[in-house]
């Protein structure tokens, strides 16, 4: 084996490893799910505050919405795992990042507020900042510029939310959810669908 052959062999191996390590495209389902679930919780909180039903009602709303969100997430995870074509380290890391971010958000909401350490007005901006961080990590692992924009959107939105008070925070947070969770979720879902149909088309062509 010549020096040139050995070198080209190593370059080839490195290229394949780099290519295979990349996480597959997000199917956007979790963005839509959590956007809708938290959106419903925000709308109910808005009306709860308007009707002066604060306290137990708001806790009950958030607790139920989060439990429903997790149940659906587990159903999606179970279905996706069955259809998964490969398991990459990056894909696993994205999953862990979002589970970690979800637990962090739950601790902030369900422990920070009852303990009266975090005021109501601060919950949305803090959660938005955590969402920005989780989106940022996902964007780097998937090498997706689109998700990076979503992450920056959450961070900028979080900064704005810190300057708002009372009911305005929930309203602005609702707008952010549609802009940075539901809309990106729909975009990612259609991209994923398109990639799947392109793959099947290539398969038909090669058959």
């Amino acid at each position, binding site marked *: 084996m*010549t020096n040139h052959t*050995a070198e080209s062999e190593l370059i*080839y191996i490195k290229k*394949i*490893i780099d290519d*295979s390590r990349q996480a597959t495209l997000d199917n956007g389902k979790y963005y839509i799910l959590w956007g809708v679930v938290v959106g419903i919780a925000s709308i109910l909180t808005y009306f709860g505050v308007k009707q002066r039903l604060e306290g137990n009602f708001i806790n009950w709303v958030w607790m139920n919405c989060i439990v429903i969100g997790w149940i659906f997430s587990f159903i999606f995870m179970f279905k996706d795992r069955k259809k998964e*074509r*490969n398991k990459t380290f990056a894909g696993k890391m994205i999953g862990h990042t979002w589970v970690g971010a979800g637990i962090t958000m739950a601790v902030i909401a369900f422990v920070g507020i009852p303990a009266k350490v975090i005021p109501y007005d601060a919950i949305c901006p803090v959660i938005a900042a955590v969402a920005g961080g989780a989106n940022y990590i996902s964007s780097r692992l998937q090498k997706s510029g689109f998700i990076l924009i979503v992450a920056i959107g959450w961070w900028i939105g979080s900064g704005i939310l810190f300057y708002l008070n009372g009911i305005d925070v929930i309203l602005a947070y609702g707008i952010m959810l549609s802009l940075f969770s539901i809309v990106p979720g729909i975009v990612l879902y259609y991209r994923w669908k398109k990639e799947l149909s392109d793959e099947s088309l290539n398969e038909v062509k090669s058959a």
Partner: protein
Amino acid sequence: MSEFDYQKIDEVLHSRIRTAIMAVLISVEEADFKFIREKTNATDGNLSVHLKKLEDAGYIKVKKNFVDRKPQSVYNITNKGHKAFEAYILNLESIIKNNKGAK
């Protein structure tokens, strides 16, 4: 003179397609047939033959199951495969090093 020893080259791995299969499987925990085919640009028949060779050498393992009533073969690398691939890479590196030293 180069210190290259041809006997050190693993005959099972010394094939472009089999090296490519091992490189794919070393970078993921497991992968199905379609994913490996996509990454290696191999045809179905060719890929099956080479996967079988790697399986016979004990470098990879296959799990067969059904997804949506369709058969699916999922492959993963064994410990023996890991060690063999590592040795193969080290061998390639030593060839490059020795040749550079000889110049």
